[in-house]
């Protein structure tokens, strides 16, 4: 079947496993035997059938070896047939650039052209140099991360960290952009059913017939779960697959029901929100253009029914990880659902009745079952008889102590256990070991809700206890066994959900024949006649944790399962211990000599199975990564060569380069032009809030530090907002438009300021008649600054006398500018004569263009945020969040004058009297003048008194703003420095990254025009 020639290993496998073509049973299973599919694994072409997974197709070709272990690089084969698979994690390539690591071979459907590869091997899967770790296993004992990587310290960068990084994950991660796209949806329904096995489907039928909206999700390509692997069962006198077809057809025909396959419920969140990841195209050979690869659903459900079944538990014994050793339940699935014999001479190793049925199915399909090895001595006679009638040898009261075989199991060593003593060994030749150490109810999603799990001593399992959500658990998830039992339980869960929705419904009943009920026991690692300390008895296949690692962790002092887990990494791989947690817990509790519930249980976290970043990101990528807020003048800036920078959520022009200019040259030119004649600046991103109502002035008095009562309509004032702690939160110029109306401007954090105001208004002062409305986006704001600002603007204004006397600095008026209705402010954030024109946003660009045209007479120069920053710094105007960091008071910032000393109260007033706030030596905002005027300091750099002091140096502050000032011909900087106001004239030092330091003198923070003469109209 393979395209290439056969290698020695494959010939060996054929001898062991019979003719490869014999492994696929024609006309058996749910695969389409008439539709062959070709795909590649590690470069070789394999043939499978439509409906196969990579795992079932490889097994049909006798290929068990699918990967290498994480720590010891031991050869590993497929263990399960589902999403709990710890070993068969492969890389899949679907098309150019479409690669995914760690895909479950047991979940990935094959299609023509699919390319897959094994992982964690070099140079090849069959010969892997890393397998040397297997011989050095004593170095990799429990806690080796903590022990090995401590010393010497110099090994960190070159040895330990690269090792940990390489070892930290299986597979290779992408180094290029994911070309696929991903979708997301919200969905609301009355009943969400997770898992479409017998209990989920019975719940769905009951719920759907009553009429509410029902969503059924299942992670598999095909719905049915256990029913797909149990074809001998009959339900209501119908062969189970016939029953399944008609059962699925009914809800599929109902408009109130949505069936979603290939959809994994990845997380269960508050108030019955369940996240689903739906795979849409990974199984398709021809993907429709523009089809999203996956869709993330956020489902808000009235009632949730979890019917996730149970996962079979491995047996822990030496060599239990050899390819060919797998779960009996998986072998049954491969046989009955995919028509694949996982071997022709299997041995069953079990402590549960269920694996006996696997043996029978395999024997009936023509396999020579070498033996059923059961750790129990008390076996139901019916099973013993059924084994005998098939001439299967049953070894009861036996343990398994070793396996042999390099890339595939060749034999298993078993010993009788009599009176607690392990007897003489016997070796049984085999090509597969199919184990079942019990069943673990799948309660991961329930665990997400923080519902309590209670230990059921009879079932030897944790079962759902107290619920925190409107959730019902049905079927094997709550420890039930047998198709009849879970059908009835599912129907009851459906009825219970309807009752909780206030609807009436009776649970349907089902007649089941050939049901395979049974019981079993669970156990710690199997007893052995050999030294347990050299046994490689794996508990966690994915993280390579053995039974002796867990016992070592207990010996070294770990008492809680949470500590054992972290020390050994048991259950910490991407499978979250679906197979290993209960075995690990059983062994740890045995080592501690305590009952299992006393040792505890670890918590499952979302996602249930590994989920792509793409699905979680959805539409948030590339240009859609985040909403880009653009000003009404943004398009002009684009057309005129602006460089942009993100400022909060806004995109702002940072400078406008002319041909040949770098940023530095452009910014210097913009600064010069503005100081010398006229600059124009898009300030539309300024936050704006209307504070309106008869109590507006009282509200302003309470919120802001400044006094507002005497501010006349038509005037504006700098406003300072503190938090309750007395630290600066925000600032801005506030205009009084009318007695009862303020036009408040804020920093870019307008939404935060509005929230804070609303918070106070609604919770502290609900008596005030005042209302707050965000108007940030209503207005386009254009700032005009420079000696010629008045000359440009005055002729364009109607409805306001623009003389210096009638419209002095800090005035505001409603008028028209260039015939656009406008709120005109005379204010300055540059120290130059300045105006800010607000017009309705739609007129923003037209006004800008008009001002540019008229401004030609004054060589008007558009400038960006860089120049704005420099011009304001030259004047010592602070920027909240740059020169302050949430620990700066008005006095620290040198703006204590903005506090209305006579006011009885304002937010933060009382905190300003705290001893620490009035203490000397606080960090205070000062200017810094470098000794070398050409030296510019680095923003954020730390400041010290003596650069020669030993490390770690005592840091007394940091640089908050630093620029080249074209106006002053030197660098300028602002900094917060301990006791800065008392250090005027002192020289401080700023250590640099290269080990040197820069010296700077402490100055006032107003560098240019301290008298403010330039604000005046000439």
């Amino acid at each position, binding site marked *: 079947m393979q395209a290439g020639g056969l290698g020695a290993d494959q010939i060996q496998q054929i001898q062991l496993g019979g003719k490869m073509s014999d492994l696929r049973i024609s006309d058996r299973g749910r695969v389409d035997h008439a539709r062959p599919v070709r795909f590649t694994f590690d470069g070789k072409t394999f043939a499978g059938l439509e409906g196969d997974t990579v795992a079932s197709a490889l097994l049909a070709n006798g290929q068990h070896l699918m990967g290498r272990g994480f720590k010891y690089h031991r050869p590993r084969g497929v263990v399960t047939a589902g999403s709990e698979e710890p070993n068969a994690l492969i890389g899949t390539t679907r098309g150019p650039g479409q690669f995914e690591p760690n895909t479950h071979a047991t979940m990935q459907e094959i299609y023509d052209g699919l390319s897959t590869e094994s992982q964690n091997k070099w140079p090849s899967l069959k010969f892997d140099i890393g397998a040397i770790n297997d011989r050095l296993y004593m170095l990799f004992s429990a806690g080796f991360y903590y022990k090995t990587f401590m010393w010497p310290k110099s090994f960190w960068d070159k040895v330990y960290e690269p090792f940990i990084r390489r070892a930290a994950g299986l597979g290779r991660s992408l180094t290029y952009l994911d070309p696929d796209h991903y*979708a*997301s*949806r*919200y*969905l*609301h329904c009355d009943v969400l059913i997770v898992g479409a096995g017998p209990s989920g489907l019975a719940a769905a039928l009951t719920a759907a017939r009553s009429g509410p909206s029902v969503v059924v999700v299942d992670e598999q390509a095909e719905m049915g779960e256990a029913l797909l692997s149990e074809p001998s069962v009959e339900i209501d006198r119908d062969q189970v697959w016939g029953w399944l077809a008609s059962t699925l057809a009914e809800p599929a025909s109902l408009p109130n029901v949505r069936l979603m396959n290939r959809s994994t419920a990845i997380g269960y969140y508050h108030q019955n929100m369940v996240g689903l990841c739906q795979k849409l195209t990974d199984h398709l050979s021809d993907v429709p253009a523009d089809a999203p690869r996956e869709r993330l659903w*956020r489902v*808000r459900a009235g009632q949730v029914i979890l019917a996730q079944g149970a996962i079979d538990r491995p047996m822990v014994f030496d060599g239990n990880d050899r390819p060919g050793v797998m779960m009996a339940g998986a072998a049954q699935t491969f046989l009955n659902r995919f028509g694949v014999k996982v071997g022709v001479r299997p041995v069953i190793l079990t402590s549960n009745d269920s694996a006996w049925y696997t043996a029978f199915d395999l024997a009936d399909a023509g396999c020579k079952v070498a033996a059923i090895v059961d750790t129990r001595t008390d076996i139901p006679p019916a099973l013993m008889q059924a084994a005998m009638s098939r001439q299967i040898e049953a070894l009861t009261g036996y343990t398994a102590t070793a396996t042999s075989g390099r890339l595939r199991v060749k034999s298993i060593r078993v010993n009788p256990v009599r009176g607690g003593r392990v007897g003489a060994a016997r070796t049984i030749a085999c090509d597969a070991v199919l184990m079942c150490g019990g069943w673990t109810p799948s309660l991961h999603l329930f665990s997400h809700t923080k519902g309590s799990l209670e230990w059921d001593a009879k079932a030897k399992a944790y079962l759902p206890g107290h619920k925190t959500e409107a959730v019902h658990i049905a079927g094997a998830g709550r420890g039930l066994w047998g198709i009849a039992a879970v059908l009835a339980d599912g129907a009851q869960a459906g009825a219970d959900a309807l009752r909780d929705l206030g609807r009436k419904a009776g649970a349907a009943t089902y007649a089941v024949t050939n049901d395979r009920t049974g019981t079993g026991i669970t156990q710690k690692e199997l007893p052995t006649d050999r030294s347990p300390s050299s046994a490689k008895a794996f508990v966690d296949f994915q993280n390579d944790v053995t039974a002796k690692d867990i016992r070592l962790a207990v010996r070294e002092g770990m008492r809680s399962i949470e500590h054992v887990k972290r020390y050994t990494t048991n259950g910490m791989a991407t499978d979250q211990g679906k197979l290993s947690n209960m075995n690990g817990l059983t062994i740890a509790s045995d080592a501690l000599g305590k009952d299992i519930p006393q040792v505890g249980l670890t918590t499952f976290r979302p996602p249930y199975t590994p989920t792509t970043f793409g699905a979680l990101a959805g*539409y948030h990528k590339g*240009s*859609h990564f*985040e*909403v*880009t807020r653009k000003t009404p003048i943004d398009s002009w800036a684009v057309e005129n060569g602006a460089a942009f920078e993100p400022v909060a959520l806004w995109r702002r022009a940072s400078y406008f380069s002319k041909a040949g200019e770098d940023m530095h040259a452009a910014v210097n030119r913009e600064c010069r032009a503005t100081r010398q004649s006229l600059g124009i600046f898009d300030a539309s991103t300024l936050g704006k809030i*209307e504070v*309106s*109502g*008869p109590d507006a002035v009282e509200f302003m008095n309470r919120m802001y530090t400044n006094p507002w009562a005497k501010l006349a309509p038509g005037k504006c004032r700098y406003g300072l907002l503190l938090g309750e702690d007395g630290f600066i939160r925000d600032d801005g110029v506030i205009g009084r438009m009318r007695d*009862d109306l303020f036009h408040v401007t804020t920093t870019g954090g307008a939404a935060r300021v509005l929230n804070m105001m609303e918070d106070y208004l609604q919770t502290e002062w609900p008596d005030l*008649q*005042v*209302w707050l*409305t*965000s*108007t*940030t*986006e*209503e*207005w386009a704001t254009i700032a005009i600054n420079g000696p010629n600002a008045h000359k440009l603007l005055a002729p364009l204004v109607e409805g306001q006398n623009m003389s210096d006397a009638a419209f002095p600095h800090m005035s505001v008026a409603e008028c028209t500018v260039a015939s656009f209705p406008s709120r005109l402010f005379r204010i300055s954030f540059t120290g130059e004569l300045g105006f800010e024109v607000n017009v*309705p*946003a*739609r007129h923003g660009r037209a006004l800008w263009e008009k001002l540019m045209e008229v401004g030609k007479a004054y060589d008007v120069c558009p400038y960006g945020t860089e120049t704005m920053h420099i011009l304001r710094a030259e004047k010592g105007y602070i920027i909240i969040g740059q020169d302050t960091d949430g620990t700066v008071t008005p006095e620290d910032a040198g703006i204590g004058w903005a506090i209305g000393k006579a006011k009885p109260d304002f937010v933060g007033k009382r905190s300003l009297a705290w001893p620490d706030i009035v203490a000397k030596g606080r960090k205070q905002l000062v200017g810094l003048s470098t000794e070398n005027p050409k030296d510019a300091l680095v923003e954020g750099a730390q400041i010290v008194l003596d650069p020669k002091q030993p490390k770690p140096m005592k840091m007394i502050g940091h640089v908050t703003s630093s620029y080249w000032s074209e106006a002053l011909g030197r660098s300028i900087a602002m900094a917060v420095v301990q006791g800065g106001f008392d250090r005027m004239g002192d020289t401080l030092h700023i250590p640099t990254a290269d080990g040197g330091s820069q010296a700077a003198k402490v100055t006032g923070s107003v560098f240019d025009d301290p008298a403010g003469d330039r604000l005046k109209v000439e």
Partner: protein
Amino acid sequence: MNASIKSFDAISVTVLPAVARLNLRIAPANLEVASAAFGLPLPGKIGQRVAANGRAAWCLSPDEWLLHGPEAEQTAIVADFATARVKAPRSLTVISDREFTIAITGPRAQELLSVACPLDLSGMVPGTAKRTLFDSAQVVLIR
């Protein structure tokens, strides 16, 4: 807008012509004064709409109404409320340019909204409004 606007068979997305949009805040006890000023009996229940003569009003929160009118009437509406201000304190803010309205029509309109709107819109009565989110953007949905 980051995405281009496209029309499909099942759905069309268009930016509607400009209207006068105003945000009214007033104590419910004074609603009659506002109703008289606007010329429509303003609805008292959140989400409800009243519309006539090219004007419409939706109640968005206990003391908040969204008013729509023809663009040409914006100045007159503001003036009428200014007169009424002496009778009852309120806040009336022009937000015509603060936002714009997108019409989403077609059999799959609700499905398109479910891409990023967390609310269950299936039971939303035509004519009513809800303030909600579309992804990270605040929106007012009018059915």
